């Protein structure tokens, strides 16, 4: 369906450029803002080019899971709102939204940036659950990286509400922040033809062969991976893609202060 578009993109690759004139490993301009939804305990908004994503966190107090009686946790949901893209439809999250939520979840969870034991209020009885919801406002490509960045920024922005005498008072936020040991940063590298690029726009997303999403810590340790797309990657591809992702992660990490 997109053969003309694909041919053109590959032709431009031959001149070391892309549809909008970017280099292969250039992101579009990124804007990050926190505290964007005062109803949430933590929130952030990320714009990458015209892509626009909001993440909000609500904290809940609940019984711990039986296998981890002294641990709280996180839950990540993503909604590809039909307001953000003419092709998104109403209804329960589709597989695209589920994948975004799961990849963002894994990036945060496996980074061990949050010590879940510290989210325990009373063993076997009460723990904090941080519910992280991703909502897309405008989809102009690369929702995954925008969502992951906004999620981490929202965690950093978060303040616990007051919890006293077994009662949670959302109206009163404390100044207690979430203790984050590291900031997992997620970058997706795309393969089209034999070229590797980052931050695809809508047209590039239509003709992706394969993608690799890489979440990493500040010391370069990898904490989550997800290969996508219909075509395979070689070990050599993966090595190159991981290196590109780590390089870009350094730049993105600077945005979250």
């Amino acid at each position, binding site marked *: 369906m997109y053969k003309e578009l694909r041919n053109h993109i590959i032709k431009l690759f031959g001149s070391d450029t892309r549809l909008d004139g970017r280099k292969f490993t250039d992101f579009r301009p990124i804007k990050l803002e926190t505290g964007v939804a005062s109803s949430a305990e933590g929130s952030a908004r990320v714009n990458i080019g015209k892509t626009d994503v909001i993440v*909000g966190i609500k904290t809940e107090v609940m019984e711990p899971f039986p296998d981890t009686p002294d641990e709280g946790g996180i839950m990540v949901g993503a909604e590809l709102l*039909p307001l953000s893209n003419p092709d998104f439809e109403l209804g329960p999250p589709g597989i695209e939204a589920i994948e975004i939520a799961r990849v963002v979840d894994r990036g945060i969870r496996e980074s061990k940036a949050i010590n879940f034991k510290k989210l325990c209020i009373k063993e076997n009885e009460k723990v904090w659950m941080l519910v992280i919801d991703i909502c897309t406002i405008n989809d102009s490509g690369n929702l995954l990286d925008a969502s992951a960045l906004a999620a981490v920024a929202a965690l950093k922005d978060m303040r616990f509400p007051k919890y006293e005498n077994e009662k949670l008072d959302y109206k009163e936020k404390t100044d207690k922040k979430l203790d984050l040991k590291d900031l997992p940063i997620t970058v997706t590298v795309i393969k089209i033809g034999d070229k590797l690029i980052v931050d695809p726009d809508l047209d590039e997303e239509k003709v992706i062969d394969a993608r690799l999403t890489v979440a990493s810590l500040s010391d370069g340790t990898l904490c989550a991976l997800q290969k996508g797309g219909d075509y395979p990657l070689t070990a050599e591809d993966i090595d190159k893609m991981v290196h590109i992702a780590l390089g870009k992660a350094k730049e993105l990490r600077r945005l979250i202060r």
Partner: protein
Amino acid sequence: MAYKQRIDGRKFDETRKIEAKVGIIPRADGSAMFRTGNTVAYAAVYGPRNLHPRFLQDPSKGILRCNYNMMPFSSFGERVRPGGSRRSKEISLVTEKALLPVLDLNEYPNSVVDVFIEFPQTEAGSRCAGISAAAMALADAGLSMKDLVAAVSVGRVDDKLVVDLDYNEESYEDGPVADIPVAMMPNHDKITLLQMDGLISTDELKKVIEMAKKACKDIYKVQNKALKEKYKAEAE
């Protein structure tokens, strides 16, 4: 006991602080933000566009579909579970009915105009903010409309008639409360949405609708300005 002074210090006929902006969602055919106090509404219009399945099509005119949805973190209390509730379905319906009277979709048979309204944060008056945002988004989408629609909630708190109730007023406990969302065609003085929760006398209802009229005219000014600003900015 009487309600002597509004909890947040406003005059009885004064709305919360209102802001509006048009063109916030580039992918949409029309879009707008409307904010009153802590309630923020985003609206996006897609269409007229192809309507499927076919049996939904109207061969004489385009149809309007509205969807009201709160983002999960938009409540100052507990998280809102994603997916439609009975409440959000009803509000979607009355929103559609509030907007339809100004729209002329005769030029677009068999098609649909979709309006998606989302709230990043809400604190009372969300359906009205949603309608005010949607009306701007429809105008931004270039649709044929004989007027905008402006909406505000009015009502009664104890012995006083008030405009744009906030959360504290809606949940006032020392006396009776009535919450009356009203949408109007501001240049025609016609009412396109009217609901009420609570108790009120017929005399008070008359008075409070007059207050809504005035507030909707003020809201129209804000909507009008926001629409002009978008296109002026483009021109400069």
